[in-house]
């Protein structure tokens, strides 16, 4: 079930919230667990076993680590449980996510195996695998206590807010919330608000960006080369907006739903397109993933406090992994390397010289071109678009289709660009500040605050019904 579906919003979430708040406080975790399992099973019940199995292994390893340590076991013995955890979880991730890709490449080179198995990626495996690993590692490092109750750990790993599309919530962030959470009216309001904002971001903004991007960048080399240069740039701008609005919308909804019932997840995006450098971009983009790689890969490898050669190695490892995490295809690896190049360039060459307007423009262009690599798994499509954006091999500089799309979306485009900046947030803040002294502004700010969530849900619901609009010519009466 995706968050941006009517059945999720109006049935699943509504029923979930009603049951949750009608249940006595002690039993609310059980309610959440049951709903989470139903939610996960909705996408294919057989993978529920995988999720439960991985959780069981992590639960066992963490407890064993703690027990061994308390009994004065050797470091080696303690570590062996950590190794079991990593081998099992990363092994399963490898099989389900990467085996097909690896075999296809081996087949390409050696001709063996003759048939590459078609493995379906279990929903959310990339996210919950990392969550569970971070939990066991944190227990190993003594940063958090092991969870004695299996079902509570299962609640952590399967919680429908973040199980399938992040953010990658650390166990220590929610350990306390699982057992004692308090909800204030402000939490509920802010949660409702963030959820509604996320929903509208996805249903209205991201989906519209997607349809514009798909029109401008149709699949297939043949159709792509019929596009004009301007069309490719405009298409990629829409794609760039789409990917942020889409992804951050899911995080917003997750964080909002958590907050409504007292879970406090860390923010996952911080207006990444306003970054002034590539490094800054990665501090703001999918923060739960970059901090995972930072804490569990980069720093254990030695981070930046080491020789230059080692530093470059550490960076290379992190960025290869970051790229590969996004998908089992060469373009994602290239995408990771693309960022590695610019990060090293910033570290050693540009250093702090790219501040100001130049820094922003440079960052946006690097990120935009990065998305080209990210978007096209097919290498010849990727090359077509890259060349096309340089004006090579397109049908011309501009054509009427592009002008039409541009005019059709012109106000929307301006709005979507504003939506990826903190402008709206700052305006609300300013209004509230001004409202302290001006009663009229104060009332307007309050009324806006009051109606925003409801209006956004209505508009999103309309867009979601409208998304199935599919006029059909020859209807049989």
């Amino acid at each position: 079930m995706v968050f941006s579906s009517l059945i999720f919003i109006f049935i699943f979430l509504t029923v979930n919230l009603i049951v949750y708040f009608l249940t006595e406080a002690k039993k609310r975790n059980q309610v959440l667990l049951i709903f989470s399992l139903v939610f996960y099973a909705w996408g294919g019940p057989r993978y529920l076993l995988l999720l439960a199995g991985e959780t069981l292994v992590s639960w066992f390893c963490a407890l064993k680590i703690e027990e061994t340590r308390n009994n004065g076991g050797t470091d080696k013995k303690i570590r062996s449980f950590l190794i079991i955890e990593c081998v099992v979880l990363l092994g399963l991730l490898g099989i389900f996510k990467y085996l097909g890709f690896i075999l296809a490449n081996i087949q390409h080179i050696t001709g063996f195996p003759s048939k590459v198995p078609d493995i379906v990626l279990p929903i959310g495996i990339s996210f919950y695998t990392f969550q569970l690993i971070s939990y066991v590692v944190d227990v190993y490092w003594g940063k958090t206590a092991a969870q004695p109750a299996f079902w509570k750990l299962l609640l952590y790993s399967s919680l429908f807010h973040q199980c399938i599309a992040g953010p990658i919530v650390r166990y220590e962030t929610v350990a306390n919330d699982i057992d004692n959470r308090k909800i204030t009216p402000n939490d509920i309001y802010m949660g409702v608000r963030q959820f509604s904002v996320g929903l509208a971001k996805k249903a209205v903004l991201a989906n519209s960006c997607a349809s514009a991007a798909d029109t401008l960048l149709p699949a297939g080399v043949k159709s792509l080369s019929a596009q004009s240069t301007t069309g490719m740039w405009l298409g990629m701008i829409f794609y760039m907006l789409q990917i942020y609005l889409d992804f951050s919308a899911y995080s917003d909804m997750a964080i909002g739903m958590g907050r409504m019932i007292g879970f406090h997840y860390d923010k996952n995006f911080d207006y990444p397109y306003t970054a002034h450098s590539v490094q800054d971009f990665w501090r703001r983009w999918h923060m739960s993933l970059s901090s995972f790689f930072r804490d569990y890969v980069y720093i254990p490898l030695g981070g930046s406090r080491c020789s230059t050669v080692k530093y470059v190695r550490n960076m290379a490892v992190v960025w290869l992994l970051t790229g590969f995490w996004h998908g089992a295809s060469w373009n994602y690896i290239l995408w990771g390397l693309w960022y590695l190049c610019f990060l090293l360039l910033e570290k050693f060459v540009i250093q702090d010289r790219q501040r100001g307007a130049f820094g922003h423009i440079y960052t946006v262009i690097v990120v935009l071109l990065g998305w080209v690599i990210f978007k096209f798994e097919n290498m010849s499509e990727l090359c077509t678009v890259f060349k096309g954006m340089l004006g090579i091999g397109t049908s011309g500089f501009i054509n009427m289709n592009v002008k039409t799309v541009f005019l059709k979306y012109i106000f929307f485009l301006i709005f979507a660009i504003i939506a990826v900046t903190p402008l709206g947030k700052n305006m609300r803040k300013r209004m509230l500040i001004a409202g302290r002294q001006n009663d009229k502004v104060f009332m307007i700010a309050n009324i806006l605050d009051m109606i925003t969530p409801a209006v956004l849900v209505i508009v999103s619901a309309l867009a979601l019904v409208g998304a199935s609009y599919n006029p059909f010519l020859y209807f049989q009466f």
Partner: protein
Amino acid sequence: MKTKFTKTQKKIMKKYRSIGVLLFAVIMLIGGIIGCLFFVRPKVSEKEKRELTKFPQFTVSSFLDGSYFSEVSLWFSDTYPMRDALVSADQGIKSLYGIESDTMMVGEQAEADEIPDIDKAKSSEEASAETGGQKKKDTAENSTTENLTTEKEPLENDTTAQHEVKKVTPPDAKAMDEEFQKQVQQNLYVKDGAAYSAYYFVKDSADKYIDAVNRAAKELSGQTDVYCMLIPNQSGALLSEEELSNMGGSDQMQAIDYYYGMLEGVKTVDTIRTLRAHKDEYIYFRTDHHWTQLGAYYVYENFCKTKGITAVPLESRKSYKFENFLGTFYSTLQNSEMAKHPDTVYAYIPNGTNDLTYFDEDGTENDWNVVFDVEGWAESSLYMTFIAGDRPLEIIENPKITDGSSCLVLKESYGNAFVPLLVDHYQTVYVIDYRYAQVNVLDYIREKQIKDLILINNITIIGSDSVSATIDGLLQ
């Protein structure tokens, strides 16, 4: 300067936010309750003219792999109560996204094949005929033996033929319709509330179609005359050279000339030159991809000339006038200029008869009219006035003619406006829509001893691979 909210202000803020949460909860509840009213869920969408998603059938495998639930999710949103009204509201919001200019291009540019020069194409075919000669001979021998067979054997042939037809006819007519819709509306030029679709020549499909028609003409030679009419899109008939070159795509006149030039033993009827000569008249709809009956009439005049009969003028017929027609282009584009100036459908009733019998896919026989009074029908359905829309098989018997003359029209929806004009010239008019056809056309022609086979097709539609393959299959 006060830097903090006063206590009253905080109270007010709290109050408004609580009301905000309450409003949110109410909306969620209302949305949920409406979603549960399964008995008011629509089954069809008037607006989109399609059947909405059905509640899925439960199977263990679809349950386990999650497809059952994803179908349920789709069903839930696709058949959400009041969907047509909600979709309209959403389109209202989307119309604020930007500016709809008077002149625009909607869709994706596609790449077209080059249209070969007919003389060159012919000479190269002659060269290749040397090698393919043996094969051709074989089929020719087969067909002669078929013709010489006794009464008993055609039955066997019949079953094998039907078996073959089943193989080539796509199992799902809906899938072909979808492709068809995509093709016709792939790239639309919109100007002053009228849309024009671009045309892309596809060599493989063209050759497949040409081969099929040539084969049919050869098979039927001596018994049945084969006529072929290829109808251009409105762009090819109406737009200036300059506009056409701005649109991109292939030259429709050149394409039709190629098709016609490659046909052998087939009587071709000029379409595009005549239609272009009448381009200032109301020969195509502006909001729909079809032509008007007036457009069909001009091609019909050419057909009569080719066949050597006298055309029956439109004015001699009784007619209907249906106003406020907003067709397929409007459904796709929701263009406000179109809504302001909808089309009018003029439909002329044949003098001989207005009775028609059509057969559904399951073989059910229905009595209908050649030109049906569609007054009060949905604004998008008025083209349905002609010959009951698209049916696997339709038969029109004209009681005023008793000479045993008959024709079979093999068509898609472009033929619908044309067929009524033929009624006054034949005792029996058979109409087969190739998309839904379940009979082998050649066998049917032989069985019914039909005198004329008339192919009337839109060039974009026969440029689709699956359509040309289907026609190829029907003419085996």
